[in-house]
Every structure is written in C-alpha cells, then in structure tokens.
C-alpha cells in the first residue's frame, strides 16, 4: 500500500530554490532515510510531508490525498495518522512527563492507556519529572512515546539520534524498529549517521542541491560497489 507519493516537488524561499523537483514514494512498513549535507532541503522536504509547509509546484499525496486539496479541518484529520520527532524536541517545559502524555492523548483521542506507554518506554522513573529537566536522550524517548500514542501510520523523525550516547541511540532504534514491525507503520527520517541508515533503513534518498540524486534500496546502492553507505555518501556529496 502506498503511503506517500511525491512528484516534481518544488519549493523556494524567495530567490532560494530549495527543492527543484523531487520524486519520492513510500510503501507501508518501509523505513526510509533521507540524507544530504546541511542546506540540501531535507528539513523542508520533511516539513512538507508533515503538512507544515506549503509548496510551490508538484504533487504530494499522503494516504492517497493531495495535500493542496485539503481544507484546514481535513489537514488536522490527516495529522492524526502522522507523528513526528523533531530535533531538538520541545514541549511545554512546565509540564511533567505524565501530564504531557495525558495532554497528547487528548489531542490524538488515543485509546492507548498512559500506563502502558509508560511501561513500554521505561518512563516510570521519569514520569513526575518536568520535560525540561530530562536529559537529551530521555527527551527523545518521551517524544517518541508521545509520537506512538496515536499509533501513527507514518512516523517522521528529524535527526532523532543527534547528540545521543550509544546506549540511548540503541534504545531509540529498538523502539522505532519494534513499532515498524508491530504496526507496519512507515518511518521517514533524516540523519547524518550513515551507519544507522545502513543498519536500519530499507531505502535511502540522497538529496543534493534540491534534487533526489539517488533513491534506492540499501542493497541496490551497496551492489554498485560501495563498501558502505558512508562510503557512498562521501563519494557523492562534496563539502
């Protein structure tokens, strides 16, 4: 089942043409890494998929619905099926973890019990801590727990493991892959960590100067002679 279908996507900020005609597809259950150097248009591309930003030309179909055809109410409905983890993640700083979970449960009208989420994500020791007082790693875990409250069809992660130590990175990826296997949800992420892309993603899209230079499976890329995805990235992207 096709979750995302993007064709000839273009977006400019004034004179700066950030996206110059992106073509992209994602099937249910895929984990796709979007890579490229800073300023390549990764975040803009994701923000369009998040329904946050309008675009100038092209088509973006989420769950078979063209985004530009949707009213504000329909966009809010579409967002029920999308969850995001941003970097850095910010929530209301004077709410405790359990209160944030309750608030977002109301937003998503979620049927998932708060206690189950707290148990699943090992948040018991942190449930009464203010979000602002958590370490970077635990903030990301809480953010992921909130993202999973809605049992989304699509999960968008913008550099989710930046600044995390190896244990927290591992923990975060355990949750993401477990979610992917359990629900068949699609995961789209940006990262600068090529080892993670090779280890966890099914497909990679390389954005360069606003164009998707390569969009292929990990196996497809490695079969062309690259030793690793890191090797592929270094040879394709100049400073």
């Amino acid at each position, binding site marked *: 089942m096709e979750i995302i279908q993007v064709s000839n996507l273009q977006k400019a900020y004034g004179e700066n043409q950030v996206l110059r005609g992106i073509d992209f597809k994602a099937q249910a259950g895929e984990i796709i890494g979007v890579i490229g150097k800073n300023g390549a248009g990764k975040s803009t591309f994701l923000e369009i998929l998040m329904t946050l930003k309008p675009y100038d030309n092209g088509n973006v179909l989420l769950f078979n619905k063209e985004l530009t055809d949707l009213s504000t109410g329909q966009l809010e409905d579409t967002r029920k099926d999308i969850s995001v983890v*941003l970097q850095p*993640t910010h929530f*209301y700083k*004077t709410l405790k973890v359990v209160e944030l979970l309750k608030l*977002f449960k*109301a937003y998503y009208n979620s049927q998932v019990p708060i206690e189950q989420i707290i148990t699943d994500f090992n948040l018991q020791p942190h449930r009464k801590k203010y979000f602002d007082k958590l370490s970077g790693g635990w903030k990301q875990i809480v953010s992921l727990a909130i993202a999973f409250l809605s049992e989304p069809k699509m999960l968008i992660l913008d550099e989710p493991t930046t600044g995390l130590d190896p244990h927290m990175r591992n923990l975060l990826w355990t949750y993401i892959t477990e979610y992917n296997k359990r629900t068949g949800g699609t995961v789209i992420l940006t990262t600068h960590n090529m080892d993670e892309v090779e280890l966890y993603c099914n497909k990679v899209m390389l954005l360069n100067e606003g164009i998707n230079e390569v969009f292929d499976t990990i196996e497809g890329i490695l079969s062309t002679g690259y030793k690793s995805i890191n090797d592929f990235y270094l040879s394709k992207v100049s400073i």
Partner: protein
Amino acid sequence: MFATQLKYDLLMFSREIFYMVFTIIVPPMTYLFMGQLFGDAMYAGNLSYAETYTPSFILLITFGVIFFAFGFDQVMNRTTGVEKRINLSPVSKRTLLVSNILRSIIITSFGYFLVFFIGMIAYDLSFQPFNFIFAFVTFIGFNAALLVISSAIYSLFTSMNGALVFSIVIFQVVMFTGGFTMPIDMMPKFVQVIADFNPLYHMNQLFIAVWNGQFQIDNSTLQSIGFIIGCVLVSLFVLRFLNKARK
C-alpha cells in the same frame, strides 16, 4: 480535549514563577502597601484611595496576565519550537486560542475578586451590585481589547530575549504613565503627554469612573473610548497583515 487543554494551560501558568510574581503577587502587595501610605488621601472626583486604586490594580493585574501569560507566552512557544510541535498534532488552532483566552479571563477574574476582597477587608470598600456588574462587564471588554493588542504586539517578536526586555520595560512604562502609581496630573508634562498615547491610561480613567458610578458620556470619555477602539483596530490590521505575510 478542550477541558484538558484549559486544565493544563492553567496548571502551566501556576508553575511559572515569573508570571505569578508579576501578575498575582506584586500588584495586590503594592495595592496593600500603597494603601498603608496613602490610604487617607482623597483623589479626583472626591474618591478615596480604595475607590480610585481598586479598579486601577485590577486593571494592572489584567494587563500583567495578558501581556505576560498570553502575549509573551506566545513568543516563547513560537521561538522554542513548542508551537511547531503542537501544530503537528491534530488539535485545532481554535481550541488552543479559545483555551488561552479563557485562561486569561479566569486568571484576571481571580485578580479582580482578589483585589476587591482585599479592598473590602483592608479599606472598607463598599459593594454596590449595579456598579459591580457594570464594572465586571467593562472589565471583560478591556480583557478582549488587551488580548487583541497584546497578540498584535507580540506577534512582531521573533526572539524571546527581545520580548522579555520589552515586557519588563513596558510594565514600568504602563505603571508610571497609566496612573497606577500616582495621579497623572501630578506628574511632569512629558509623562502626561505619554499617558495620552497609553491605552491603559484611558482604560484606567474609564474603569475608575464605571467602578464608582461616575461614568458619563462627555468629550473626555469619548476620546478615551475612541483611542482604545483605534488601538484595537490597528492591532487587528497588524494581525491580519502578519497572518497573510506568514502564508
């Protein structure tokens, strides 16, 4: 969803020491302290300290709550990325806005009754049902006007530091040129000129008159009402312009 949002909006306000100090703690304390110093004095319109400054301090609390907890809070959420994360959730902007407005009205109403209660206990302030109801309706009207003005002003800020400095400075300016510390006609000429351009000064004059049953339509009140309406219209224009520009 709305009840949950409002509950947490109120909880967040109560946990912000900065907001609490500037809105719920400092103005009533100042009202009490000034009353000890000037409690026996008489003011314009042959009004006592309590009759003059009870409505003034209610208005000062309203200003503080709306400018800090509504306006500054918007800048904080926008610049720290909280607004972006909330916008990604399926909660309607109307729910967030109405909850925010209702939170401000609940807190300012609490301030209204708190200062009124202090006035009754400490300064024998009398309760006159008609004036009280008319004053409360006027107070709700000022709430609405200040919400619009504050929203327009703070929508111009793109950094939290700028908004914080502005908030602290404007609080001082409003205190001195709004007639909240001492009568404006006892102040230097330049302060009186600034006061004419301060919507809070006009609100204060109107509110004192309404509170004490002295409100009447004359040139002075029409000018004050006209100036407040003008500020609201300019603010609505700014909000509309900025909304279009952001799209």
